[in-house]
């Protein structure tokens, strides 16, 4: 039992911190978010190919670094802090987790090395209407396989897919010919796929709708059976929740840091705003929420590494995501408030975090939904 970060882990965090302070500065983020794809390909190449971040959680057997949830959490936290515009979360935080937890080994062999090397971007379409996956219910999925002359044909649509317009590889749940939901992966450039970039208010992460119109799938497109999906998707989603929670945590931390820096300089009534006790207490409340969230996330990351605690992990990831969503929304809102007039200008950064906070709060389950899931496990069991 040791809850201190190892020196390797501290190094991973510190390297990410200093790289992103430069490569994902406010100016860099604002430049990237005005581009067509929404990210800077050069920065992405450094992240994926030079720094090897994409390889972090991927086992060595698939040419990854074989590191664990703790390391991924540390990276995501720094990326969230700097609002890195990049397809990292969709590719590594989400798609790689689904491949690792749910897919057949052949699919892992096919895709994970390319993801690890930073050459392949990927995403997962989840529920029909949003970035969500309920372990029970059908998630509204209407995507379905039919058998055509040239093999399996896929029709259906997904309303909101993270980085859906740019990802190289699409992973989608769809009903097989028995009506059960299996998982399919295929290149996003196949004929019949329409990817429509959506205007969204979080300009630092793009979403798209995806329509699949008589898409003729390659023979190897199915990567998981309905049984595998039912058994393993909850864990994959929990890992994706944890990664997203870490990203949210980093954003919340930056909201606090930006605020303390600003109010320590800003003078009103002949005093720095930071000298007003009510303001101090508000900042302290932010810190308490942030540290509580950090504890929940680091704890869940440690639990994720212990297969004996798999059932706990599902609930702890849900709790971490719920806390992170609430903490991020709270801190981003208070960052605007405590910045005063400049807080709601485009020029200052709190608005960027405020929008990211709201958008990510509803990915992979809102806090309401996640808490209800925890309550159900605690109260409805026999």
């Amino acid at each position, binding site marked *: 039992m040791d809850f201190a970060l190892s020196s390797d882990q501290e190094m991973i965090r510190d390297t990410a911190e200093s790289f992103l302070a430069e490569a994902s500065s406010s100016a860099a983020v604002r430049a990237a978010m005005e581009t067509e794809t929404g990210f800077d390909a050069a920065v992405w190449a450094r992240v994926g190919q030079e720094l090897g971040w994409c390889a972090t959680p991927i086992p060595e057997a698939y040419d990854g670094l074989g590191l664990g949830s703790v390391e991924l959490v540390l990276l995501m936290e720094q990326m969230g802090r700097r609002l890195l515009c990049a397809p990292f979360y969709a590719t590594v935080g989400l798609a790689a987790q689904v491949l690792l937890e749910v897919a057949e080994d052949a699919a892992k062999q096919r895709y994970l090395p390319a993801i690890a090397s930073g050459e392949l971007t990927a995403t997962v379409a989840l529920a029909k*209407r*949003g*970035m*969500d996956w309920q372990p029970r219910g059908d998630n509204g999925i209407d995507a379905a396989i039919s058998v055509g002359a040239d093999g399996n044909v896929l029709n259906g649509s997904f*309303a*909101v897919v993270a980085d859906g317009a740019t990802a190289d590889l699409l992973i989608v749940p769809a009903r097989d010919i028995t009506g059960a939901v299996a998982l399919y992966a295929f290149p996003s450039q196949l004929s019949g796929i329409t990817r429509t970039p*959506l*205007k*969204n*208010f*979080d300009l630092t992460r793009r*979403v798209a709708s995806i329509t699949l119109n008589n898409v003729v799938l390659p023979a190897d497109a199915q990567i998981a059976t309905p049984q595998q999906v039912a058994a393993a998707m909850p864990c994959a989603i929990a890992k994706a929740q944890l990664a997203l929670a870490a990203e949210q945590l980093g954003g919340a931390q930056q909201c606090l840091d930006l605020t303390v820096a600003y109010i320590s300089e800003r*003078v*009103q*009534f*002949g*005093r*720095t705003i930071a*000298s*007003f006790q*009510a*303001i101090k207490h508000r900042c302290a409340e932010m810190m308490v929420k942030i540290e509580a969230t950090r504890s929940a996330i680091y704890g869940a990351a440690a639990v994720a590494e212990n297969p004996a605690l798999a059932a706990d992990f599902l609930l702890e990831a849900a709790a971490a995501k719920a806390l992170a969503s609430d903490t991020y*929304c709270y801190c981003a*809102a208070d960052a*605007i*408030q405590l910045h*005063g*007039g400049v*807080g*709601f*200008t*485009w*020029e200052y950064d709190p*608005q960027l975090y*405020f*929008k990211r906070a*709201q*958008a990510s*709060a*509803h*990915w992979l389950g*809102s806090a*309401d*939904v996640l808490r209800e899931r925890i309550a159900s496990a605690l109260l409805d069991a026999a």
Partner: protein
Amino acid sequence: MQIEFSAADEAFRGEIAAWLREHLVGKFAPLKHRGGPGDEDAFPELRKEWEHKLAAGGWTCVGWPKEHGGRGLSLAQQLIFHEEYARAGGPGRVGHIGEGLIGPTLIAMGSEAQKQRFLPGIKNGTELWCQGYSEPGAGSDLANVRTKARQDANGDWIIDGQKVWTSLAHESQWIFVVARCDPDSQGSKGLVFLLVPLDQPGIEIRPIRQLTGTAEFNEVFFDGARTTADHIIGKPGEGWSVAMALLGFERGASTLGQQMHFLHEFELVCQAAKENGAAKNPQIRARIAAAWSGLKVMRYNALRMLSGTQDGSLPRAGMMYKYYWSNWHRDLGKLAMDVYGCEGEILDERDDTARAHLQRIYMFSRADTIYAGTNEIQLNIISERALGMPKEPRGK
């Protein structure tokens, strides 16, 4: 204490409702529910035309005394007017700063010549006004004015400095400015309250882009800007008391109109929740019920405030009014986005949909708790003035 309106008042309600039904149509139809706070750049030309239409119907400045060109409505009828205007979706009034703030101030404290010069333009919607109070170094610290005003040989005022968070500056002809006329003074002493024409070389207006991406607010730069000696309210040195008197007019009958807008927005949220199934989420249900309670609170609170106390003091209901509505509105914006869930952040192509409207509220309501006295200033005022607690000391 009674909640009913008289039969005469209800007849008046029918009159204004009918007029709006007849006139807020055709070319004006797109204005419905538009142009409010956070949406002030919507259809500016058409809204000016609408202001003229209103004026022609006798529906501007309805609370002003008749001798000043107003309609001289009773408080109850003013409430009814603002309620019906909002209920009909009447657009945000480009003339509201003139009608609600500087007009009443001129009536109360202006010279006869000033009244004759300025009131008709406000009443007819032909001269629009904006407000020059806040400065970059003094957002909440309103008395910390650095903009300077001095008189030249023939008495004209020369103004140098900068104002900020000025809405509608681009559309207006006049700005009222609080400036320091005694360079050795500090705080609320030594200020002057001036009426300044905007269309002159000494004034530059630069829009400020907000978190919405749009620019409702402006910076206004004064570099040797001028106004004539007679365009002053009160005397040099009395600017602070004029400025405070003006702010006192903010809590008028129009607050009931604001509440009808809020009700409309609340109904949009309920509708969205019913449509997308969020209305089945028990937490959303509890928040919607709480928001509904808040609408009732605001209504009765405003009625308490407007009915006043027998001793004429501003009752506690008045002191908490701004804090309450601004936080309620901010919460409604957040609730709306949580109702939409993952789709909340998707921007619609058309900006007159319910979602676009609620997205604007989500974002712009962040300003509600900052402008016109931040939450923190409001709580200071409540604790100090209503509860008699010690004043927050100034630094230095």
